[in-house]
């Protein structure tokens, strides 16, 4: 791109800037996204509006194109990285301004599995959507899940696996929760390349999430259901 073609973000009006930030997120342009966030904050936008209207809305487009096979893992990772950089600025401000939290989630890859690209994407997208996320990393035995659930008391437990050899471990975790009589305290969402809805049902999870965008939507639906149920109880 020549200098003449270069877009000066600060010269764009709000609407154009948000649109440009969606494009920059899509392209995974970290520095541009950070600059966009800073400009909107300088213009008096609330951190919550920057998050939802610029970052989350932009990542939603990325999520849809990922789901539809237009974007692949590298592009989505770059976009998520750009979003994370923007989030880095917003997170402390959101905490200060008491922005609404939709819910919270403990998430981790199951025992025997070190693959965490999908899980990391889910974590980032969930944070972006307003969830508090406690990511316990990779290769988690059931004890790690129990400990994290006890400590953070989230609405949602998320488990991921990439291997057909490790995904059955999700059942071990769910059965342990059943044995302890706490299964119904949590919404259990599972995901990972070799999984499907049938498998999720067979291990006793509440839902299978095909990708990070679906995970966010599913989490929102189930948390709303849980809150309604609690409110009417």
């Amino acid at each position, binding site marked *: 791109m020549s200098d003449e073609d270069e877009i000066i973000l600060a010269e764009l009006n709000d609407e154009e800037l948000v649109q440009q930030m969606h494009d920059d997120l899509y392209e995974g342009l970290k520095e541009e996204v950070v600059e966009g966030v800073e400009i909107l904050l300088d213009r008096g936008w609330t951190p919550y509006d920057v998050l939802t209207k610029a970052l989350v809305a932009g990542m939603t487009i990325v999520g849809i194109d990922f789901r539809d*096979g237009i974007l692949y893992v*590298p592009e989505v990772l770059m976009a998520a990285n750009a979003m994370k950089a923007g989030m880095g600025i917003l997170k402390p401000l959101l905490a200060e301004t008491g922005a609404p939290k939709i819910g919270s989630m403990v998430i981790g890859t199951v025992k025997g599995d*070190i693959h965490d690209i999908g899980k990391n994407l889910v974590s980032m997208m969930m944070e972006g959507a307003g969830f508090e996320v406690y990511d316990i990393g990779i290769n988690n035995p059931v004890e790690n899940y129990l400990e994290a659930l006890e400590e953070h008391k989230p609405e949602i437990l998320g488990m991921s696996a990439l291997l*057909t050899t490790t995904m059955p471990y999700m059942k071990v975790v769910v059965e342990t929760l059943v044995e302890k009589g706490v299964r119904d305290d949590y919404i259990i969402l599972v995901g990972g*390349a*070799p999984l499907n809805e049938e*498998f999720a049902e067979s291990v006793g999870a509440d839902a299978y999430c095909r990708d990070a965008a679906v995970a966010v939507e599913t989490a929102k639906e189930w948390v709303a259901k849980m809150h309604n149920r609690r409110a009417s109880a």
Partner: protein
Amino acid sequence: MKPNLVIGCGAIAQELVALIKANGLEQRLEVTALPAIWHNTPEKILPGLKEKVTAAQQSGRYDTIYIGYADCGTGGLLDRYIADEGLERIAGDHCYAFYAGQAKFAELFEQELGTFYLTDYLARHFDRLIIQGYKLDTHPELLPMMFGHYSKLVYLAQIDDPKLDALAREAAEKLGGLTYERHLTGYGELGEFVAQAARG
């Protein structure tokens, strides 16, 4: 007498052909391949395979069709399809397992979870499939995000070729200086699969 057909992944096509030639099975078994790059996008495998199977069935040229894929990240969908169609595939989760042998592979897996596996094909095409395929050439910052948990690279060699050994070593370096190990497996369980596919 009509020949049988193996419809397989491009990543094992050369090995399938080598086994057919070595055993003089050219009249009994033919091979057709689908793009090996689908290794990176397993969701493309089943639709592509279905198309190929249908075309082969409609051609009337073959007696029996065999599937030269393991599960390959299709999460059981491939198995459901081949069961519905009454087809057979090579056993295991992926080519690493059938080259190494299921038991040996399970052992390797247990030894070190963070192991990245290469076959001859993957060693030969590592740059195109992995480095370029995952955009690591233009975005090296993705390397720790994608492969940060790997500590070892195991090259499962089908043939004893020092050039491939050197390429595999280079691959281990490119993935962030992984510990390197080479196991000469030969064709492993692929040999029996070819013999069975030729017998029908």
